[in-house]
């Protein structure tokens, strides 16, 4: 046990280790942030195409979206990452961070689309009918009635997806990227501390703290969106 505390002291008193950890953490955050952004943007588009009323203009887009989500959700993330690295963006000099962002962004979009689609479909059809019966346009009905109610259903699941992406980015160490996970492995290796337990423990704390903060923010947003529910008044 003494050894454990000595190792902690060693890690935190060696600027190179701290720097490596922060460096790795920064990469984890960068990939996650932009991947989630792409995921939400693309996911929203896919979801909207999916829930839109069928028309001849949407036959092909709807088909593409369904094939896309099926493939993404039906194959391992690690394999998708490999395909991006070793097949699609295999040419020299292409920044690996961009490849990783695209890989995770495209993956997250498929899941986010399902979350948003589910959120929109869970809004009672009577709400739309009320708008129609009052002579409102589809646009007004969507933005004033359906979307605000859907968001309440979407936020908790979207928070989950964000957390999943952050944790999943740890697999970029498999293609040699220096993220938080890789930093822990590097610091613990033979050339450095020659003990994995402390750096990996500290890396875990970094992930935990990040996810804790995100959970907190999501809960806050959920609460503020609930003002029209009875639950909030109770």
């Amino acid at each position: 046990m003494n050894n454990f505390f000595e190792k902690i002291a060693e890690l935190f008193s060696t600027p190179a280790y701290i720097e490596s950890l922060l460096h790795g953490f920064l990469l984890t955050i960068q990939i996650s942030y932009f991947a989630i952004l792409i995921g939400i943007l693309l996911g929203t588009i896919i979801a909207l195409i999916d829930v839109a009323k069928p028309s001849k203009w949407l036959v092909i887009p709807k088909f593409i979206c369904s094939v896309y989500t099926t493939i993404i959700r039906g194959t391992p993330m690690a394999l998708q990452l490999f395909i991006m690295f070793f097949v699609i963006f295999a040419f020299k000099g292409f920044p690996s961070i961009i490849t990783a962002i695209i890989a995770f962004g495209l993956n997250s979009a498929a899941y986010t689309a399902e979350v948003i689609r589910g959120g929109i479909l869970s809004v009672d059809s009577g709400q739309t009918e009320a708008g129609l019966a009052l002579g409102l346009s589809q646009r007004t009905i969507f933005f004033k009635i359906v979307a605000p109610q859907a968001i309440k259903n979407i936020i908790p699941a979207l928070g989950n997806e964000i957390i999943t992406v952050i944790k999943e980015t740890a697999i970029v160490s498999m293609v040699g990227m220096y993220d938080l996970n890789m930093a822990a492995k590097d610091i613990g290796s033979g050339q450095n501390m020659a003990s994995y337990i402390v750096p990996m423990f500290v890396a875990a704390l970094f992930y935990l703290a990040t996810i804790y903060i995100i959970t907190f923010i999501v809960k806050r947003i959920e609460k503020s969106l609930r003002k029209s529910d009875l639950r909030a008044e109770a």
Partner: protein
Amino acid sequence: MENKDTDLIVKNLRKSFGKNKVLNGINFELKEGERVVILGPSGSGKSTFLRCINWMEVPTSGEIYLDGVLITEKNIRKMRRNLGMVFQHFNLISNMTVMENLTLAPLKLKLMKRDEAEKRAMELLKHIGLPGKANAYPASLSGGQKQRVAIIRAMMLNPEVLLFDEPTSALDPESIEDVLSLIRELADRGMTIMIVTHEMSFAKEIATRIVFIDKGRIIEEGTPEEFFSHPKTPRVQEFLKKIL
């Protein structure tokens, strides 16, 4: 504009859901000031008929004219302003306060200015005894309160016809009376009304005409007196025997 005294004409209205033919050629006329109650066994198509009138369900074929104008996909939005609808499950917009529910359509359709719409909404709320609920969300209202707000929401647009789709079916007995007396009051003021209901005594009391639908067709219509006391068709006789 010639036949101003006829509000609504329905010609050979048919509606199918896939292979299921729900309406099989309905012909119907509604004149200004009439109060038509639509009766029929469950699954007869009476709610579908009502919902086809303002295109909540798009008719499969047939024509509907409001004041001589054929309802089409192009003009339906405008026509709906004159075809107010009250639903079984109220359908108040849950992310909006009572006041926002009332003023949404008049403001979005640019029919009233904000202060004008809010003043009118407040008058109507006072009228139904709920001025204190203006800033409440629907979730905090009782069923009867929700339905009364839904009725005045439809009235905000001054429709020519009010369509009621089983307005009391989701309410407790006490609330039913509150809602019925509000409908009664609209009737007394000359509002043109179509109503699908299972409240037979209310139907008898309020209707100027009863329409009986079975298997997607109107099989008998007449005054409440004729309908309830001297039913002509065996189907209606059987129906009345079961319920009275």
